[in-house]
């Protein structure tokens, strides 16, 4: 049984959590009507706020990285962790359905990493992140990357307690991704357009992609880069450093 959230090996009850009050009345046909009025994602959102409080209390910048499979999230992390080694303190949570391949790649950069395998699950949720964080001994004033399961749909609905949500698309995908999967772009704060070194070889209209993304989310920040050639990486590093709060 977990001492923090009350979950056990076979049950996921959270009876210690308050779920507000409810009202009941008779409907006149001898039946009892319970007014529940409760958010379906309530439990996830509570745990997400708990994670958020933990991160804020330790001045940890948590970034949820989301994209479809193959957009280059892990490659972006590998390069970032290597280039900024010594400048910022990092830790990584890797989310995949199966294998520890991505965690192995991150581990090779010398960064602390935990792998979450979701099995058949198509997204990370706040509960998984809570338990991953418990085993990590995260340092204060650090950056935590949470690389979500490669999926441009499901992870959009699950708050993990992150401060920033960065959606990665690559130029080998269609530029209309933001319109096809608007929920993800709507809930993100940063959009990274990756693999710009391949632009001469593919039909990808960067301006159109940016226009579509801003239709869904006008406040979205957009950075174009290539983790292969290094072009644009400095913009990403500047963005990252601007989000890291200097300890008081």
């Amino acid at each position: 049984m977990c001492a923090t959230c009350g979950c056990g090996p076979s049950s996921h009850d959270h009876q210690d959590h308050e779920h507000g009050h409810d009202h009941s009345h008779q409907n006149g046909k001898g039946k009892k009507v319970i007014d529940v009025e409760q958010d379906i994602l309530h439990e996830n959102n509570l745990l997400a706020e708990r994670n958020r409080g933990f991160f804020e209390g330790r001045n940890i910048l948590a970034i949820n990285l989301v994209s479809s499979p193959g957009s280059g999230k892990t490659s972006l992390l590998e390069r970032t962790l290597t280039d900024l080694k010594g400048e910022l303190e990092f830790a990584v949570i890797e989310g995949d359905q199966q294998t520890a391949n991505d965690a192995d790649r991150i581990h090779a950069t010398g960064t602390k990493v935990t792998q979450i395998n979701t099995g058949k699950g198509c997204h990370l949720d706040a509960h998984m992140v809570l338990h991953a964080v418990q085993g990590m001994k995260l340092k204060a004033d650090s950056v935590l990357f949470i690389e979500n399961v490669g999926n441009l749909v499901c992870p959009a609905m699950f708050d993990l307690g992150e401060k920033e949500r960065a959606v990665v698309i690559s130029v080998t995908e269609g530029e209309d991704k933001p319109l096809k999967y608007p929920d993800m772009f709507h809930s993100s704060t940063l959009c990274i357009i990756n693999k710009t070194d391949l632009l001469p070889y593919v039909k990808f209209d960067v301006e159109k992609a940016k226009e579509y993304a801003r239709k869904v989310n006008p406040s979205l920040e957009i950075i174009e880069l290539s983790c292969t050639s290094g072009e644009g990486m400095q913009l990403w590093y500047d963005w990252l450093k601007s989000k890291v709060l200097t300890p008081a």
Partner: protein
Amino acid sequence: MHELSIAMSIVDLAAEQAAKHEALEIEEIELDIGCLSGVEMDSFDFAWRQAVKRTILENAIRKVNRIEGKAHCLECGCNFDMHHLYDSCPDCNSHFSEILSGKELKVRSLVLPD
């Protein structure tokens, strides 16, 4: 297929309420699912059938209120119907808007036998 997680969360939530009211079955459940909530109803129906099997909701009648998307334009101040998250204001064409409704995802009520 996050619809399965959502259906399973509803089952947990309903079971918790039923236990609190010492009910052994739930006759009816009423849900609010907004049109901009990111839930695909066909997937949800499919997930629902699997998620409620051998649970307290197995025989419950499910009512779903689909809440239409409405937004408030932050440029010109008008309210408009939003069918997609990328819809702009029909008056001034701005995309800066605040969603007023359509993101709902909640259990509104349960009917228990007396």
